[in-house]
């Protein structure tokens, strides 16, 4: 029998981390950086210092490969993993339509005070797509 005190689940406030959330932390999807990226974007949350970097290889308006690197609280890592997984293989237009709520949902939901992690993921993606669009035009 395990001791009841060892059956502890870390929580943010009242909310325990969901299984899917913990899975993203334990087995991050598409972690790393592409050596042959077409575009790399990094955004920082100016208040808490969390950082997210996305590197994308884009062919024919489609994100062929996506990788992420992240520093910060667990929601930032989980959202980085989720967004890198979600945008791989989709068209630029579809990727551009992703919302922060979809990212939060993909990690099993986030309490209001951790929503900034999903926002950082979307902002980094938007920055990468904007950079790619301007380079494309240039």
């Amino acid at each position, binding site marked *: 029998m*395990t*001791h009841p*005190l*060892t*059956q*502890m*689940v*870390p929580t*943010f406030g009242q909310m325990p*981390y969901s299984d899917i959330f*913990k899975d993203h*932390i*334990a087995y*991050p999807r598409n*972690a*790393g*950086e592409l050596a042959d990226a077409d575009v790399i974007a*990094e955004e920082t*949350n100016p*208040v*808490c*210092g*969390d*950082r997210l*970097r996305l590197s994308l290889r884009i062919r024919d308006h489609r994100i062929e490969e996506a990788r*992420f*690197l*992240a*520093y*910060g*609280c*667990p929601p930032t*890592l989980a959202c*980085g993993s989720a967004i890198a997984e979600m945008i791989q293989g989709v068209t630029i237009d579809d990727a551009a339509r992703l919302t922060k709520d979809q990212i939060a949902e993909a990690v099993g939901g986030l309490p*209001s*005070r*951790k929503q*900034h992690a999903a926002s950082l993921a979307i902002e980094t993606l938007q920055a990468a797509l904007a950079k790619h669009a301007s380079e494309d035009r240039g």
Partner: protein
Amino acid sequence: MRKVYLDHSATTPIDSRVLEAMLPFLVEKFGNASSVHMFGQEARAAVDKARRQVASLIEARANEVVFTSGGTEANNLAIHGICEAATAHGRHIITSAIEHPSVRGVVDELEKHGWEVTRLPVYDDGIVRIEDVRAAIRPDTILISVMMANNEIGTIQPLAEIGALVREERERGHRHLWLHTDAVQAAGRLSIDVQTIGCDLLSLSAHKIYAPKGAGALFIRRGVRLTPQQVGGHQERERRAGTESVANIVAFGAAAELAQKELDERNKQTRLLRDRFEAEVESQINDIVCNGDREQRLPHLSNISFRFIEGEGLLIHLDMQGVAVSTGSACSSGTLEPSPVIRALGRNEELARGAIRFSFGKDNDNEDVDYAVAALSRAVESLRALSPLAREHVVLAEESVPSA
């Protein structure tokens, strides 16, 4: 999966002997200790015995011990109680920069209400300097509240020296100056003697010494008057109203007696485990910084900052491998609250965010240590593989290697 509990500074499991002592008071011995009949008197006798046991742990007299609901209430009663009672004599408090939130929060609140507060620095070793205490004392200082040992890094503060300083001040005519110490982390790990220390108030908590949550105590030296914070009953000699939590208090007493009896044995064991842990971590994981003085600290505790990563992610990774630890930092609403204790050591934000506390207990063994180190090594490697900070560090290191 193996489960390894390394968070004994957060709370401890109940010792089976303590549980055995308290159980009758949850079942057949249910009397109210204030009742005159035999049920009540049975409970009263048990509370009195526990009071003697807790008093003995700190070398106090039994009637100097007031039971509370826990350490937080004891700290509230001590600080608010003295400050309210002594307003006429001054409104200046001295405390340290690394107090537990239950002291820090009370002092912050008093500051909002016009009290002046001096927060003593702790330097990179996490220890208050006696010269700073001396320099901070003013004619209107009424309270010095410095913890006996820190809850995050375990550093032991020079309480006996502060006590001697307070005595000196009193001899010079500074009569309205009291010394309080939060000994919640120190109890059961350091030998405490309130006579040697010379403190007027000392806070304790039951659940840090293998008793359940819900009981604590405040030592109030005979002759020290404070304003009760909870009124409406005659319990605890009018210093803390409310029916005593008899079973929890009995458990606290039993745990205090065991802690006193087994102090050396427990310290020897946890020190061996802690030292084995630190030696292994230092040999297996790069880019770490140990926080707090390595000598002048509690024997069961280790606080380490892991560079390039954030503590909460590490905590989750370890939890998923069955290892329970703590981090002092919290990130909420996009605002970062890095551990004030680690920041007080002069560490930067990255090190404060990457700090983890490992606190060993009497039931841990070498296998726990080895399992935890292996889990930690995997967790750190995994998180650093994701970290842009770690990559930048590698790139910088490679660039700094001179080409052949």
